[in-house]
């Protein structure tokens, strides 16, 4: 007795299974190309560039909205953040970022976007619903790195010439504490549980591990690569795994990404990537880290489990940042 209905049901189940599992693998990476004035769209299944979106002048900071519907990209020389519709891959709007936006951060709820205005010594707060600037907070000279704490209570912004991390209370929208850091602090990242704040110093050459409650530096990590001039080691972007066990620090012109143990803060490994690696992003499943190489016009794909660089993907001219959403 063969019931075709069983087959039909089985078939449907397979299809259902396929469509259920498919989204967890299929991601789309968006890479900002600083010189190319474009965003490369990369399919993380085929690991290939599938489209290029023209943007404004000098796109750098890039993020996907929490609902995945939009990509925000800072067009620094056009003094705006452009909004790209992920479905149509067209620019559908702009955000009033203030002058020369570079890095920006979204709050966990996806309601507000915080922009570091390098030329203005300020952080601009943008309401994403109304797409209007709602506040401007004065910070140090040349604000650069910016991140929102996992609980959404604080924005941390680094200022390059002032060499500080400023803690901004998101409710009061003012600076409530400052931490002095090594020269030219660049990027900041929280562990997902909020227990640690990592900040790179591009010229100081190190990574500061800051305790967000005491707001003091609890450890300074140094990078030392045999055979390489110390001036070549310029830490920039940081990506910490969701479980907080590993941190990846992009070391700019040393052409390497350092793997740092999340618990001991020892440097475990230096991964050779492309030239002048800037910033990166994990695929949402945490399996891969994509890192943008500013001089070799490609993105290195790092396998997080094996800590190996498994592929490089050609993108546009002088890639700077990566943001990843679902397909």
């Amino acid at each position, binding site marked *: 007795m063969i019931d075709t209905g069983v087959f039909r049901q089985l078939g449907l189940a397979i299809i259902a299974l396929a469509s259920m599992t498919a989204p967890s693998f299929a991601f789309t990476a968006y890479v900002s190309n600083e010189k190319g004035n474009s965003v490369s769209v990369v399919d993380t299944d085929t690991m290939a560039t599938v489209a290029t979106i023209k943007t404004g002048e000098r796109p750098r900071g890039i993020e996907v909205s929490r609902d995945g519907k939009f990509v925000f990209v800072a067009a620094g020389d056009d003094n705006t953040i452009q909004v790209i519709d992920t479905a149509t891959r067209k620019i559908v709007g702009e955000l009033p970022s203030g002058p*020369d936006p570079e890095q920006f951060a979204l709050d966990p709820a996806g309601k507000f976007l915080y922009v570091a205005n*390098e*030329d203005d*010594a300020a952080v601009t707060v943008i309401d994403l619903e109304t797409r209007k600037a709602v506040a401007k907070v*004065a910070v*140090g*000279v*040349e604000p650069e790195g910016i991140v929102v704490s996992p609980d959404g209570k604080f924005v941390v912004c680094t*200022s*390059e*010439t*002032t*060499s*500080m991390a*400023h803690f901004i209370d998101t409710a009061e929208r003012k*600076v409530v*504490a*400052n931490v*002095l850091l090594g*020269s*030219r602090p660049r990027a900041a990242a929280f562990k997902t549980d909020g227990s640690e704040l990592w900040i790179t110093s591009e*010229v*100081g*050459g190190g990574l500061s591990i800051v305790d967000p409650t005491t707001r003091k530096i609890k450890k300074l990590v140094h990078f030392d690569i045999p055979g390489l*001039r110390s*001036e070549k080691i*310029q830490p920039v972007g940081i990506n910490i795994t969701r479980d907080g066990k590993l941190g990846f620090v992009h070391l700019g012109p040393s052409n390497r990404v350092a793997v740092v143990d999340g618990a001991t803060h020892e440097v475990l490994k230096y991964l050779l990537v492309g030239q002048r690696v800037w910033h990166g992003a994990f695929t949402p499943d945490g399996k891969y880290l994509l890192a943008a190489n500013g001089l070799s016009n490609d993105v290195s794909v790092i396998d997080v489990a094996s800590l190996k660089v498994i592929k490089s993907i050609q993108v546009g001219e002088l890639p700077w940042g990566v943001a990843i959403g679902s397909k």
Partner: protein
Amino acid sequence: MGRHAALHRSLRNLSRKPHSTAMLWHAVIFCIAVGWISMSVAAEPQRIKIGYLHGPLSKEKISLIDIPAANDGLAGAQLAIDDNNTTGRFVGQQFELIDSSIKDGDDPAAAVNALADQGIAFIATNLPAGQLLQAADAGKARGEILINAGAPDERLREQDCRANVIHVAPSRFMLADGLAQYLVLKKWRRWFLVSGSHDSDKLFAEALRHAATRFGAKIVAEKEFKDTGGARRTDSGIVEVQRQMIDLTQSAPDYDILVAADESEVFAGYLPYRTWTPRPVAGSAGLVPTTWDAAFDQWGALQLQNRFKKRFQRFMTPLDMQLWTAVRIVGEAASHANTTDAAKLFAYIKSPDFSIAAFKGQKLTLRDWNLQLRQPILLFDGRNTVSISPQEGFLHQVSELDTLGLDRPETKCKLQ
């Protein structure tokens, strides 16, 4: 202000409702909170005054474009004060610049003492070597620390070095070495050296000869251009200059590049495109070693250029950058050492912990044997930054930056 108003309001509320213990607690907690905040920010900021002592700016330039603005240098110092104060706002420090100018040949002692009387310990200077030494010696008894942002003379860092003088301006040897490394890398090794007749020109020529020997270039011919006086520019000058430059350059044996030593700006600016044989020019014209140029945009420099242009409506010059760096050194030390005590600040600046970021792609530190700031040298063609020295491959056991200028084993400086 707002905080105090709120405090008054809550105290007023408190007096209206004397029985409310909750309100009382509220006020107590509020007072503690206010006290804590003012402790952490420091109600009265620490004040640091920085002096800027300088002579008149030379207006004798070959190109109209090069005639300095009245605030050349001063503007750089003022911007650094702004930057120091932005940081100072967060650590409770306030900086002020006191500008003091003297005439050529004046004894600077009175000016130094006047600055010291105002409680100033750090004085950035743009003075010729002689006046700088007079100022340093006059200030020694008062505990004054000078930051030389103008004079490139080797002797200030060598036999005539002073323990109370920091050098932010690169020396002539550093500039010449920065240029030489690039020319040697390009394999332009045969140099035709033309120098001016003034002392400073001769000193720069000496630095270029030293650099040639050090990096393996060869000076195939040398010539002097005598300054016979007269105006830099005249209405019919172009015709005469064209002939003069041919005369000056036609007898030389074959060479790769003409290297000019003309700090006095008498002739070098006339050399490019006017030489007898078609050769590039470097040194005091053509490809010029410098600390800054208005087209430089690497390593975040664009932000500084923008900030400067917004405030002063002109381009930032090398002298502006040198003064910016001098004043920022004091600010950086004050915020990191968290003190206004001059002796402590100076000790921190001289310690291995100190470094300053000045948009050169790496931290800049002081050579402990003569207090010279280590720094990359930019090579500028008048429009763009052509290259930045040290060049790849010029190695050093301590810092690649020490391939520029006289190194520790060669120094004649004994700091005292």
